[in-house]
């Protein structure tokens, strides 16, 4: 199973042509736009000072990160990021905030 065929000559990058192939320039532009959006989103999260609002900003930022992973061809990481970064983590943080707030009352 783990043994490579002896005559395997190391393959180089092969241009893969699929029905989904997108022009490189378009993909580059998309990646740059999303990188800028992620940088802006991270700044937005840091600059939001009210904890509850910050959690919502973090959730939106999580979705931006998911878009980033998708644009960089990692759909598997995208799926995890959407659920963990945009749903589960914000829910845990909101529950924690809720508990802290009740204690303060």
């Amino acid at each position: 199973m783990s043994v490579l065929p002896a005559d395997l000559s190391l393959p180089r990058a092969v241009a893969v042509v699929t029905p989904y192939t997108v022009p490189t320039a378009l993909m580059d532009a998309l990646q740059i736009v999303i990188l800028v959006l992620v940088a802006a989103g991270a700044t937005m999260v840091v600059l939001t000072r009210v904890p509850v609002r910050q959690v919502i900003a973090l959730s939106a930022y999580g979705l931006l990160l998911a878009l980033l992973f998708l644009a960089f061809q990692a759909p598997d990481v995208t799926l995890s990021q959407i659920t963990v970064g945009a749903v589960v983590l914000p829910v845990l943080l909101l529950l924690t905030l809720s508990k802290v707030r009740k204690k303060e009352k």
Partner: protein
Amino acid sequence: MTPGLRRGLFLAGLAGFLAFYLWGLTGLPGFGHYPGPYGFIINSIAVGQTKATGVVSAVNFEYRGFDTVGEEFILFAAATGIATVLRHLRADEDETDSDGAAVLGEGASDTVRLAALLFTGPTVLLGWYLASHAQTSPSGGFQGGVVLATAFVLVYLGGDLVTFRRISPNDLVDSAGAVGAGGFAAVGLTALALGLPYLDNFLPLGAKPGAVSSSGTIALISFFVGIEVAAAFVLITSEFVRQTLAASARSGA
């Protein structure tokens, strides 16, 4: 140490770090230029070798399966740790099912309730699909598991705490997590018992790449990982929810 000296030390360290960092950056391959060769090798042999068209899953559960066992147990240990600490903290408090449910249940607006209701079913379906199709798509047990856990979170967000607790009883969630994590390890041990390397793919691979029944242990491991991940995330959420509940009961809200 005077502030001036401290600042000087910091700046010297910063300069050194920056110099090495920039030097390191110049040696990197260009953006988008992968130097290989492992990716190229995997890309050219993985489908033929494992009969899995989801090559990411083939890498996760086959070529580096042992690493993935480790990651699996990191999540398992983290969830167990959270449950141990939070259950201990809560041990002396009364369970306050109905009161607590009333307190937290009123918070959700009709819009949130409706959205949660509409999304719960499709989320379960998507999670199950992802966890059971690792071999044919870029998904897998982890993705499927977290999506399944999200369905439980949706039930809670819909404001129905009683239902959330009824569908995620401690015993069931705990044992599901143990079965998932143990199942992965057991697949590896079965290979050992058959005289093969740990986690070797001992099941028939199937003839046709891309069939749901193909890829042998890759699909089986992904299934176990899905159970374990869903259980771990439900456990963590559930413990956090109960913490909030205990706090609200104590304050008499």
